């Protein structure tokens, strides 16, 4: 009996130790995917600084993994209980948050699509009107990758190219791969994409794919991966095959691992997204919308090609936002 009481006291004490977050008038709710990814960490910093500058209160939540679709929906519903004035949400997929966003809209809460995960056609069908979407233009990011490749090896270059897509069916990866492929065709028709395979955002899988394609096409000239993790996996396979000088590898994201690898001269380039800027501008634009100013429905935050030269020169003003 004593033990039971002790256990309860312990449980109660551990709960009491959690500081009580206080709700103020006009709080913003920010729902991210997961914190176990530096990308969302940087975005969180942007949100924090943006909120500080704009002088608004916000509370932020995330779920344990970027595949936890239903938990994210449940968290979203719970957040509405705090009656925020705006919900800035990065949905795990194009449908998992729909019931919550609808509820938010019905309650007069402004809904923002952070990082462009929602599908406009589906939103229309559900009758959800978002205030704006904000994020990188992924098609443009892919195109920038192609532009970099062509500037490095020339418009008349010839040879096989491998594209490693994201999770099959994921819109972000699809857009990047498409942007790259279209631009490459336009700029350097001699470069032929011999395979475009889903790497599922997985470093190991990308390494395996690269190995396999290198066996089939030993004269491979370039690899474009839809994110840095996969690009880094590909780089390892390329170097293991002793073809580090022959194959140009390009990733997307500009995360810290990629920056390190670029500085070491392994990864050739990464089209950096600026999540810090995305988070900051998201809050700023919500503030504008709430104050009654007009906000574009599509806020595109620029992307930046990181190479060893750009990083070493350090003169690019946007570098400040690469976290």
């Amino acid at each position, binding site marked *: 009996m004593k033990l039971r009481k002790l256990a309860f006291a312990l449980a109660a004490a551990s709960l009491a130790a959690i500081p009580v977050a206080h709700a103020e008038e006009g709080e913003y709710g920010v729902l991210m995917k997961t*914190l176990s990814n530096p990308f969302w960490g940087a975005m969180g910093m942007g949100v924090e600084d943006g909120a500080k500058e704009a002088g608004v209160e916000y509370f932020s939540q995330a779920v344990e993994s970027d595949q936890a679709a239903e938990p994210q929906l449940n968290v979203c519903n719970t957040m509405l209980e705090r009656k925020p004035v705006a919900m800035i949400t990065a949905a795990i997929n194009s449908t998992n948050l729909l019931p919550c966003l609808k509820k938010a809209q019905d309650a007069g809460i402004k809904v923002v699509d952070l990082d462009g995960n929602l599908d406009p056609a589906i939103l229309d069908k559900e009758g959800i009107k978002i205030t704006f979407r904000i994020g990188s233009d992924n098609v443009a990011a892919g195109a920038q990758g192609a532009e970099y490749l062509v500037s490095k090896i020339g418009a008349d270059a010839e040879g096989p190219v491998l594209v490693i897509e994201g999770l099959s069916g994921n819109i972000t990866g699809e857009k990047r791969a498409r942007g790259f492929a279209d631009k490459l065709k336009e700029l350097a028709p001699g470069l032929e994409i011999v395979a475009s395979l889903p790497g599922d955002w997985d470093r190991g899988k990308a390494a395996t794919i690269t190995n396999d394609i290198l066996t089939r096409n030993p004269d491979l000239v370039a690899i474009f991966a839809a994110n840095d993790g996969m690009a880094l996996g590909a780089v390892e396979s390329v170097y293991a095959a002793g073809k580090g000088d022959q194959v140009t590898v390009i990733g997307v994201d500009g995360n810290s691992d990629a920056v390190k690898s670029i500085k070491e001269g392994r990864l050739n380039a990464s089209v950096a997204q600026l999540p810090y800027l995305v988070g900051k501008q998201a809050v700023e634009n919500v503030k504008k919308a709430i104050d009654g100013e007009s906000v574009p429905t599509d806020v595109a935050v620029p992307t930046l090609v990181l190479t060893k030269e750009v990083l070493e020169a350090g003169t690019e003003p946007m570098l400040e936002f690469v976290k």
Partner: protein
Amino acid sequence: MATTATPGIWSRAQRASIDRLHIRLESFIVLLVLAAAMAVLSPFFLSVSNFLNILLATSTIGVLAIAATFVISSGGLDLSLGSVMGLSGVVGAYIAVNLGAPSPFGVGACILAGAIAGYINGQIVTRAFVPAFIVTLGMLGIARGLALVISGGRVIYGLPEYLLFLGQGRPFGIPVPVIIFVITALVAHFVLAYTRFGRHTLALGDSEGAARAAGIRVERQRRILYTISGGLAGLAGMIFMARINSGDPTAGLNYELTAITAAIIGGTNLFGGRGSILGTMIGALIMGVLQNGLNLLAVQSYYQQMAIGAVLILAVFIDQYQVRKETRA
């Protein structure tokens, strides 16, 4: 505190609750203490809409936890629950959206897909003598892979209206998933606690040899249990599919572990022989309340996982402590 010498109020209440409702009072008290703590900590906790939120958030996990209770209390294990849930939602959405079949077929397809997966589990476990851990671990991979194949890796969006009602409708202000969940739990509780089928299930978990000697058709019983387990996973898949208006191939990822956790917190013996659906429901609600409260307090998800882990260990510790004390007395 001489509870063992003369039966005090506590032990009499405990006995009554075990006899009548098949739940242990400790888990119920943990739930109340947790809810009280949350109510003190967050001004948003105590409201009807928030309680419905908790029940809604618990509905899919709750249905899976019912499945887990049946299988675990019979001495088995089903690790494929979450994947089968994902597969069922995709199959249902595929049939209702891509093939344009009427809604009842969509519902039927979800449950049938789950039941078939469970039936296959049961067949292999009882006829090929592969351990349940391995068979259902294999099914975990097969079902998830199949869900991704059928859906092409993307969500199948846009269900017909009747199906949507099952996920988003609110008769009398109560979400339909909550209604489905509560009815399922009550029926399942009745079956496990008061029918011959339920007694056989627990007997099987207690001692397979004794159950066989007593004339229980052990293999048949197990096959039925795995099929029920799969069918319930299918029901959970249907609920989630209707809730988000799409078949999501990644739905239910890692849910098997959460469902098993709910069953264990609720007093189900991991090695079989003891289990009650009401107990499991309390276990599921403990996790639901904890998660909801921590969300309201805007506590990071990392800490939430730690909190749930701690509650699991604490609940089983209290439970074991009591059981040992009673058996010694």
